[in-house]
């Protein structure tokens, strides 16, 4: 059943992905009296246990086991959930030259989930003294975007995110490593913090479709109306 939901989620994101390539490119406009969406993403009940990942190599450095970070729940609040406004073609400015940090740290990806705007670059670093390779796959069909070697410590490799959608990040050298980059068409995407909260600001007044996505729990789309200078609350509770 869960797999079924995942398939639907994947199919939806594929359709959204296809649709997006035909949509107009994002246009920066003056948003002087923008509104805000803020909220908390929660998990109802006991979250599924994160599997214990057994290190098959570099045990001396990585340790024997690491707990997976698929479900990060603190007092019922869910971290690492992507919240993004899907249908804004024009809005606030953003730093096109920003480098989105993405680290190979202690044999895991840090952060586990992040967002980037199409055209921005991911700054992949390796703070471990061992060989990592960062293998990015685009979309539900997991087409290789880049597979880069990171043999040396602390040398940031910048790679442009050219297409919108979910990017899955893996390391062939350490098969347990897993991360995600949500590449959005506009700068209105974020990831929930440790307390499950998020804020998206500078939104031109209007009614929008907001996507809430979690790697294991799938996605929901909610309609939200933003008023000039106002704050709209958007909470969501996932359950198993």
């Amino acid at each position, binding site marked *: 059943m869960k797999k079924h939901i995942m398939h639907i989620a994947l199919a939806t994101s594929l359709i959204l992905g296809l649709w997006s390539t035909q949509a107009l490119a994002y246009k920066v406009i003056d948003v002087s009296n923008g509104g805000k969406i803020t909220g908390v993403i929660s998990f109802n009940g006991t979250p599924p246990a994160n599997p214990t990942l057994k290190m*098959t*190599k*570099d045990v001396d450095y990585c340790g024997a086991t690491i707990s997976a970070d698929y479900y990060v729940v603190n007092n019922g609040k869910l971290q690492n959930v992507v919240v993004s406004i899907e249908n804004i073609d024009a809005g606030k400015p953003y730093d096109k030259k920003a480098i989105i940090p993405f680290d190979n740290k202690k044999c895991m990806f840090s952060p586990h989930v992040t967002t980037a705007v199409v055209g921005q670059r991911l700054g992949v670093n390796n703070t471990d003294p*061992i*060989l990592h*390779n*960062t*293998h*990015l*796959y685009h979309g539900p*069909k*997991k*087409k*290789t*975007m*880049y*597979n*880069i*070697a*990171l*043999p*040396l410590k602390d*040398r940031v*490799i910048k790679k442009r995110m050219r297409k919108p959608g979910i990017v899955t990040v893996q390391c*062939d*050298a*350490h*098969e347990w490593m897993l991360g995600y980059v949500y590449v959005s068409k506009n700068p209105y995407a974020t990831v929930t913090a440790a307390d499950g909260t998020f804020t998206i600001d500078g939104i031109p007044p209007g009614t929008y479709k907001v996507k809430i996505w979690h790697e294991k729990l799938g996605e929901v789309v909610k309609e939200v109306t933003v008023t000039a200078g106002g704050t709209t609350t958007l909470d969501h509770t996932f359950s198993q």
Partner: protein
Amino acid sequence: MKIRKHVQRISRTALTFILATGMSGTVITTALAAEGGMGADAIPLPIELSPFKQRIPENAANVEAGRALYERSCIWCHGVNGEGKGPVAYFLSRDTAPHPRDFTSGIYKFRSTLSGEMPTDEDLFRTITRGIPGFMPGFRGYSTEDRWRLVYYIKSLSPDFKDAEPELIKVVGTPIPPTAASVQRGYQVYQKFKCWECHGGGGAGNGKKAGTLKDDWGFRLPPRDLRRPSSFKNGNAPADLYRTIMAGLDGGAMPSYSDFFEGSEQEVWDLINYINSLAAE
């Protein structure tokens, strides 16, 4: 300006040449001469022998002719729809990589382009011509024109080729003589860039990360045993190795090292000399 463009065109031709053929610096110089880039006294290469000079137009008729050739020779492994699921595919490899290429996926190992980019037409032509040791036969038996027709048909199987303008890997320098000093430098590069973590200290493909490597389709894919150059799927000439190291093998675990060699590309030629020094066959 016009001259600059001309020079750019020539260097691009030379680049394509070195990447595609794996030829040495001398040959490239000759190829350059034949392109009109050198003095009149340079020895001209019978350039009409170069398959890239016998290129035919990429049009519907040639794609269609390519299909007929494909259906005669390629369909057995690569399948009716190009998905790599032909009737013979199963016998080639069941649980281990590589399976016959899925031409609809748009993912190619053997490229002279950066990781994530589509291959060039010349890359496809080279693979069709040479084949892949141990897996795919070479099709030199087909005329140059027919091999181009196959290239065009294969390209028609993936929408990713449409409007693709792949970025080439940067080629700096040419193969250097495998002196003891160069091999020694190459050994240092092998250590520093941690090639040994997958390929092993002695190049036997038994590094500490070797055991779990898989390709994009989840099939087991052990790192190459560098002591067996004849088994290198992407070729074993220095220019072939340069391509493999810098472009990586997309779809497999071998990553691209082009970012890390940026500015020190000369070291790649040393590394290649070291890899060749491991040969035991």
